[in-house]
């Protein structure tokens, strides 16, 4: 709802700052714009030409009984029609194409910008909101670029040409015709204003109706539990009625406006005929001119209405662009150093020196943590929930930056490394395996063309994922649905192991999943983990006894501090935190193992 409200705010129709930024996107398509304006002028001229031609036909040929002359005019009329039709087609096509291309540019710029935002941004912003920016908001700009800016010219030119033709035939009659024009303008803009108000009103009631329904469908069990169906129905009914009444009110304006415009045109026709009658009788005016004028009256109204619609289009585009620019301007980023140290080969020596870290200022989740991992070592991090285990791996990959202290890789502060470089050497296997829609293969390689199919198969074989994959109908090309819904928890984990292995990193971070799997899968996973850890520096947030027992070193985290360090036996002997954690989390595994 908060989201919805933000999206519904309609501000000014024109904001020069926003407009300037928007126009930057048109620049690459300057030629399109120029061509479109020229074609628009052509189209705008051809339409009003025809009533004029029919005047010529009547006065010069029909009245003089000139069959060939009439045929000539008919031919010209037809030609102008065809030309206008063809030009109009390409005009529509190319302005729309330009609009779409601009939209595309903005969308991609926005998307790649979002890719660079730090995790902090994603922590505080609901995914849905960012998605809306990239999809709906960008689309809302389309209307402005394709039909908005350029057709304004067409409307104005059209009116200008109508006036020119009319004046050239009879300025007196033009004035008579134009007598109702101010009224038409006024009525149209008044109508637009009223409709806009009513539209907003309708939107408000619609939003209320929708949020009521949304909320009560979600909480239907509460409604039913408290047997409030009757009262809720009454409440719904009143909101529903408000919505209906708002709509009926806006129908009222439409109902008045359209007949009124028709009336205006009838009045204009009446005036023209009346005035012309005197002139014709006196021989000042011809019937041809009268016919032409009667046709021009019909032509006025479309450009006037179109112009008034532009206001709404502009307003919507401004609101959307403001939200888009806000996101483009979001600076929640972890910056790369200006002159990064280039990493050629990594040994995998990691050191934390008095590291302090907080997600929110002042609330430290890691306090003064120091430890060193030698190349090729496996360390296990254990601790209760909220002890700070995940934070350690988050800051090592610079998903977040630390407040105090430093972290080094092979003796280099990781803040002096290019993020991309740093992460290239570290593979992370997260507890919630995230699979993308695509194939098994694409989920292992993540689309990296440096990883050959052979390497993919090899990685899958090494972690023991090949058995189930080869049993799938399409094997490695089997489609993976959104979030891997068709695969079991264990299978998803094996795929994520294969992914990590395929990237063959020097450093591996593994957040072991706690979810229980059947014994067979468990055996597979344990074997896979053993294979994964060989020959690289590994940090494991451990939930498996086997992993801990095989680790070179165990770090025991407790309430953000590193409390105990040592191997399994040493730590057990201490009878401290580790001992209790062991009793709580790992001891059972021993029992099931021996059982």
């Amino acid at each position: 709802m908060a989201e919805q409200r933000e999206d519904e705010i309609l501000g000014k129709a024109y904001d020069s700052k926003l407009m300037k930024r928007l126009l930057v996107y048109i620049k690459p398509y300057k030629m399109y714009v120029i061509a479109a304006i020229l074609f628009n002028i052509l189209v705008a001229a051809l339409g009003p030409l025809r009533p004029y031609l029919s005047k010529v036909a009547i006065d010069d040929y029909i009245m003089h009984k000139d069959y060939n002359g009439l045929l000539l005019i008919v031919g010209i009329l037809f030609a102008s029609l065809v030309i206008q039709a063809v030009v109009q087609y390409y005009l529509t096509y190319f302005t729309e194409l330009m609009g779409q291309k601009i939209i595309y540019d903005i969308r991609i710029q926005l998307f790649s910008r979002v890719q660079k935002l730090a995790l902090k941004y994603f922590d505080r912003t609901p995914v849905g909101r960012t998605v809306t920016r990239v999809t709906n908001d960008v689309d809302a700009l389309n209307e402005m670029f394709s039909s908005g800016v350029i057709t304004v010219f067409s409307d104005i030119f059209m009116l200008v040409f109508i006036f020119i033709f009319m004046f050239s035939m009879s300025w007196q009659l033009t004035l008579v015709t134009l007598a109702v024009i101010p009224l038409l303008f006024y009525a149209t803009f008044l109508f637009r204003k009223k409709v806009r108000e009513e539209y907003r009103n309708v939107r408000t009631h619609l939003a209320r109706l929708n949020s009521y329904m949304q909320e009560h469908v979600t909480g239907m069990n509460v409604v039913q539990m408290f047997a409030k169906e009757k009262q809720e129905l009454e409440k719904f009914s009143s909101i529903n009625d408000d919505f209906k009444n708002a709509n009926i009110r806006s129908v009222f304006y439409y109902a008045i406006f359209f007949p009124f415009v028709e009336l205006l045109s009838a009045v204009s026709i009446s005036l023209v005929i009346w005035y012309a009658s005197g002139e014709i009788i006196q021989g000042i005016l011809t019937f041809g001119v009268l016919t032409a004028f009667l046709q021009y009256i019909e032509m006025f109204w479309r450009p006037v209405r179109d112009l008034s619609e532009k206001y709404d289009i502009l307003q919507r585009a401004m609101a959307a662009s403001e939200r888009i620019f806000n996101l483009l301007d979001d600076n929640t980023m972890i910056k790369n150093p200006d002159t990064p140290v280039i990493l050629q080969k990594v040994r995998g020596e990691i050191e934390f020196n008095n590291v302090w870290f907080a997600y929110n200022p002042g609330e430290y989740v890691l306090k003064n943590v120091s430890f060193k991992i030698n190349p090729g070592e496996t360390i296990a991090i254990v601790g209760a929930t909220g002890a700070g285990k995940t934070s350690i791996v988050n800051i090592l990959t610079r998903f977040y930056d630390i407040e105090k202290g430093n972290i080094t890789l092979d003796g280099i502060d990781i803040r002096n490394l290019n993020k991309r470089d740093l992460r290239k050497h570290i593979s992370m296997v997260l507890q919630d395996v995230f699979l993308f829609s695509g194939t098994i293969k694409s989920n292992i390689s993540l689309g990296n063309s440096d990883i050959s199919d052979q390497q993919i198969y090899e990685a899958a074989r090494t972690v023991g994922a090949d058995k189930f994959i080869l049993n799938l109908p399409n094997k490695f090309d089997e489609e993976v649905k959104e979030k891997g819904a068709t695969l079991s928890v264990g299978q998803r984990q094996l795929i994520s192991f294969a992914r990590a292995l395929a990237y063959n990193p020097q450093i591996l971070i593994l957040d072991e999943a706690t979810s229980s799997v059947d014994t067979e899968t468990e055996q597979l996973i344990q074997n896979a983990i053993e294979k994964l850890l060989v020959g690289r520096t590994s940090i494991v947030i451990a939930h498996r006894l086997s992993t801990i027992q095989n680790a070179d070193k165990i770090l025991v985290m407790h309430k953000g501090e590193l409390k105990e360090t040592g191997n399994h036996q040493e730590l057990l002997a201490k009878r401290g935190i580790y001992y209790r954690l062991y009793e709580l989390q790992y001891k059972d595994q021993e029992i099931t193992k021996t059982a």
Partner: protein
Amino acid sequence: MYFVRYKKTFVLGIIFILLSNIGQVYIPQLIKQGINAIEKNAVPEAVLKFVLLIALTSLLAGVFRFLIRQTIIVTSWKIANDLRYDFWNHLQKLSLRFYQNNSTGNIMSHATNDINAVRSFVGPSVMYTIDNGTKFLFVFFIMLSMNPLLTLYALLPSPFMTLVVYYVMSRVHAKYTKIQEKFADLTARAQENFSGIRVIKSYGREDYETENYMYESKEYLKRKMDLVKLQAMFIPVFLVIAGLSFIIVLWSGGIQMIEGNFSIGELVAFYAYLGMLIWPMISFGWVATMIQQAEASMKRLLKILNEPYEIQDSVTTDYNIKEIHGQIEFKNVSFGYAANLPPVLKEINLKIEKGNTVAFIGKTGTGKTSLVNLIPRFYDSTGGEVLIDGVNVKNIPLQTLRKNIGMVSQENFLFSDSLANNVIYGLNGTSDNAIEKAADIAQLSKDVESFPKGFETILGERGITLSGGQKQRSTLARALAIDPKILILDDSFSAVDTNTEEEILRRLKQFMKNRTSIIISHRISTVKDADKIFVVEEGRIAEEGTHEELIELNGIYADLNKRQLLEEELSEMD
């Protein structure tokens, strides 16, 4: 069926359409006569008569036009309103199972898009069809009576117009669907990317993902342009066909004029009539596609409207039951969510005496919630019987049953309304006393003091966001406020700290003296004082007894107890 309710208005609307069209069709005749009068060099007063008549007729036609919208379109909104009302009334009676199987978004789309499509049909579609149909006939016959041959020539191109509109519109629909699909892909891709941003960042796949998105966006652009190619045809074709009619009239009419068989006035009238015919020609094609959409929407709506009420009073309901005392019994109860799914509860037998406090403990997904959901009949058991005061719950009036049960479920859903209104949600009418009392037991009073407007503070999106614990305690207060005979607390203290929990339980004890309480929890501390504790495992009661008895038993419960003691010890260490 909804039409019937507004039959009179519709008939009136149709009459207005006829009257307005007669007026509109008459205007070109007046123009013709006016011009003819000029041609015959009539006195200005004679012309003036026609001129005034034109304005007057237009005014009359306009008034009727106004009334058309005020009857037919207004009625269409009324019908949509009725339809939505019935839809909602129906939704409220559907059981939880329906909501489990249908996403909120899905239901919302029916309530908004589908009802909208139906309204467009009963309003604009009906209006335009009748309006344009009659107008077409009127104009056609008048033109025919004026000049049959010219009419034939002039209207020659117009059937193409209807055909083109229909052709374009029906293809537009297919192309539009393709665009929507791609747009959905774009949305899904972005959604997936932003949700999986950790993986993308840690494997450095940002550029690849952007490239992928470029590819998808390009495809979207292509599909849009596909539609544009088609839609861009619309105006030019319309221009040519309509323009052709005018040219034919000028040409053929001009020849006839030269021969003296046709007047300027008639030419102008013909022009005007052609102008009137363009819109009907377009709208026939347009309305045809609109009707198709409305049909599909109505089908979807009917599917939901025909969804049976699974849980309701029946012929065996005993309306003499006016109150509930609180004795609960499960006899061989089994339950499954669907016939093809394994049962969640298997032959449960248990008895809870009136005024007792019992607890259910066990791992997540073992069936505790499903078990208590059978008591207020959120679901009906698939086997066996659930009895309250010795009566099968199916025979107790649903209203009576639910009004006497206070249930606090895990979702702790609150409405975006004031806290006070949330707490007294189950009451009819206000009672400050009830609010205070319930808030006091639920340990909510202190929080309320810190809220800007106390109990009148608005919650949810438009107000303040409560913490998990505050939400749980608010839903607890809501359940207590109705003064229930049976209180069910489904894991209601998970976000409440242990000290507050203890205090709540202490106060509840007093409140629940003569009531039956059922507590579901993972925490030993919450359940240990219950009169009886049931340990649920895999849909069965695995152990039952008091805290002491179960510790003695040294089974699942005792193990759980040991772990929780350890956890407590650990969290107290520094």
